[in-house]
C-alpha cells in the first residue's frame, strides 16, 4: 500500500500562503491532503468529517488555540496523530500541545524533506521530537517526580529518563539504540511511553483540579 491510499492529512494554519505551500509539498510527495482549516473550530469539524491520519497543526490560530484544538481533535479521534508545525518562538505552547496529545513537533524552518519525513513518522506512531522539546518534557517529569501527589504510573523509569536525556542532547533514536545496545523500536517505545505518561499526568491533574473545584463549589453552596 502506498501513502496515497493510507495517509490522509489535514493541514491547519491561518496563514494562507504557508498553508498552500505545505499542501503542495505534501501532495507532491504523494500524500493525500483530505482538508485544510484556517481556524480551530473549523479544524475540529473537518477532522471529525474527514478522519485524517495526521493533523499538521499550527499553534497560533484564531478562534481556538492550537493547544485546545489539539485536545478536541484527540478527544474526537483518539487514533489520529497530531504533528505540531510551529515557529520556534513558542516552546511552552508546544509543551502544552504535547500534553494535550500531540506526538510530533517540527519547526517551520525545516526543509520539505524533513516535513514529509515527519508526517510519515508521526502517522506511524513514531514520536517526532526536537532536543528542545525533549528538554521541556524532561523538565516536566523532574517536577512530577518531586510532587507528592503524582501517581506512580506517571513517573519515568530510569531507562526512560536516560533515553529522554539523550534525545534532549540531540542524539537520534539510532544513535541512542547503538549506545544502549537496544533495538531502534525499543528506543521509540520508551519515548512513546514518556509522552503517554505525560499526557496521563496531565489528565490526572485536570481531574484533580476539577474535583477540587467541585468540592469547593459544594462547600460554597
Amino acid at each position, binding site marked *: 500500500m502506498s501513502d496515497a491510499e493510507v495517509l490522509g492529512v489535514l493541514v491547519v494554519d*491561518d*496563514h494562507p*500562503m*504557508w498553508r498552500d*505551500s505545505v499542501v503542495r509539498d505534501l501532495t507532491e510527495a504523494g500524500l493525500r491532503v483530505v482538508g485544510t482549516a484556517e481556524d480551530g473550530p473549523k479544524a475540529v469539524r473537518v477532522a471529525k468529517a474527514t478522519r485524517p491520519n495526521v493533523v499538521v497543526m499550527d499553534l*497560533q490560530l484564531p478562534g481556538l488555540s492550537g493547544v485546545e484544538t489539539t485536545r478536541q481533535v484527540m478527544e474526537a479521534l483518539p487514533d489520529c496523530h497530531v504533528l505540531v508545525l510551529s*515557529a*520556534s*518562538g*513558542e*516552546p*511552552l505552547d508546544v*509543551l502544552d500541545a504535547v500534553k494535550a496529545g500531540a506526538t510530533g513537533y517540527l519547526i*517551520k*524552518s*525545516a*526543509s*520539505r524533506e524533513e516535513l514529509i519525513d515527519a508526517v510519515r513518522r508521526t502517522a506511524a506512531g513514531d514520536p517526532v521530537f*526536537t*532536543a*528542545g*522539546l*525533549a*528538554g*521541556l518534557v*524532561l*523538565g*516536566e517529569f*523532574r*517536577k512530577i*517526580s*518531586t510532587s507528592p501527589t503524582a501517581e506512580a504510573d506517571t513517573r519515568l523509569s530510569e531507562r526512560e529518563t536516560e533515553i529522554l*536525556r539523550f534525545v*534532549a*542532547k*540531540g*542524539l537520534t533514536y539510532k544513535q541512542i539504540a547503538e549506545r544502549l545496545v537496544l533495538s531502534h523500536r525499543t528506543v521509540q517505545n520508551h519515548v512513546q511511553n514518556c509522552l503517554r505518561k505525560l499526557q496521563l499526568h496531565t489528565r490526572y491533574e485536570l481531574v484533580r483540579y476539577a474535583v477540587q473545584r467541585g468540592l469547593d463549589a459544594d462547600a460554597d453552596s
Partner: protein
Amino acid sequence: MTTLGSLWRALTIFRWATLAWAGFLIVRDHKNFQHPLAGLVVLAVMAAWTFVASVGYERYGKRVPRWMLGADLGIAAAVSLATLYVVRHGVVLGGAGLLPSTWAAGAVAAWAVAWGPWWGIAAGSTLGVAGWISHGGLDRGGLEHGHVSQQSASELVLFLLVGGVVGHLVRLARRGADDLARAVELQAATGERERLAREIHDSVLQALALIHRRGREAGGVAADLADLAAAQEIELRRLVAKAPVEVYGADVDLRESLRRTCDAATVSVEFAAPAAAVLVPARCAHGLAAAATQALDNVARHAGPKARAWVLLDDDGETITVSIRDDGVGCTAADLADAAAAGRLGVAQSMRGRIEGLGGTMCLEAMPGQGVEVEFRVGR
C-alpha cells in the same frame, strides 16, 4: 485619587477640624476680649481662607501657585499677631493660647507638602516667631514671663515638627508613587512588546521562514536570499524575545544565562531546558555560563566545520546538570593524553577549575567520529 490629591484632601479635613476648635474657643471667650467684634471678624477671615484653601489646593494639585502658599502662611501669621490687638488683656484657651490655636499648622503642612521638609521647617519657624511675638505682647494678668516663653517654645517645636515630618513623609510617598508609576509604565511597555512579538510572529516571521525554505529549494541566487531571510528571521526572533528580567541580589534564572551563551556561540546550537525557571545564585549562573561558553568555543575550534552542538540544562531538584554535546570529529583517549602531555588541555582545566570553584564536578567524554560531550554537575 493620586497620592498628592489625597494629601491635600487630608489637609482640608485637618483645616476644617482645627477651624471648628478655634471657632469654638473664640466664640466661647470673645466676651472677655478687648475687641470682641474684631475677634469674630478674625474668625470669619479664618473660615473664608479655609474655604479658599480647601478648593484651591485640591484644584491646583501639583502646581499650587506661590501666591497661594504665601497667602496661606501670611494669613496664619497675621491671625496669630491679631491676637495682640483683639485679646490684649483678656485670656483665651485656658489662659495661654493664641487666636488661631492649632489652625495655623495647616499652613505649615501645606508648605511641607508642596515644597518639601526644608520649606516646611521655614514656614514653621515663621509661625513660631509670630507666636513668640504675640505671646510676649499679651498681658496675661499675673502669668509669669517664663511660662509665656515656654509656651511659645513648645509651639515652635510643634510647628517645626509638622513642617519637617510632613515634608519628609510626603517626599517618601512621592518617591513611592513615582516608582509605582514607573512599574506600571514598564508593565505596559512589556505588554506592548509581547503584542508586537505576537504580531511579528504571526506575519513577518512566517513569511521569512517561507522565503528561507522555498529559496533554499530553488538554489542559486535564491539560496543566497534564503540565507539572508534565515539570518533576519533569527535576528528578529531574538529581538522580539522577552527581555531578561534581572532582580538585584536575588537568584538568577540559569536558563536565561545559558540561552544568551548559546545565542552568542559561533556554532549552531540547540538549547534544551525545562519550562520553569531554574533559579540559582548569580555566582553559580555566571560560572556555569562562562564554562559553557568555553565548551562551545572549543566545539567551534576543534569539532570541524559541520559540527552542531546541543546544550541541555537538567535540574532534578538536587543536582543541576549542564551538558554540552557536539557531533563533530571527536577524539580518542590517546589524543587527549597527548594533548595533556603537550600542555594543551588549558581550556579543559580552566573549565574544570570554574566548576570545582562552584563545588561541582566536570566530566568529559569523547569518541572518535562521535563528537565530544562535556558535563558540568553542580549540587543545589
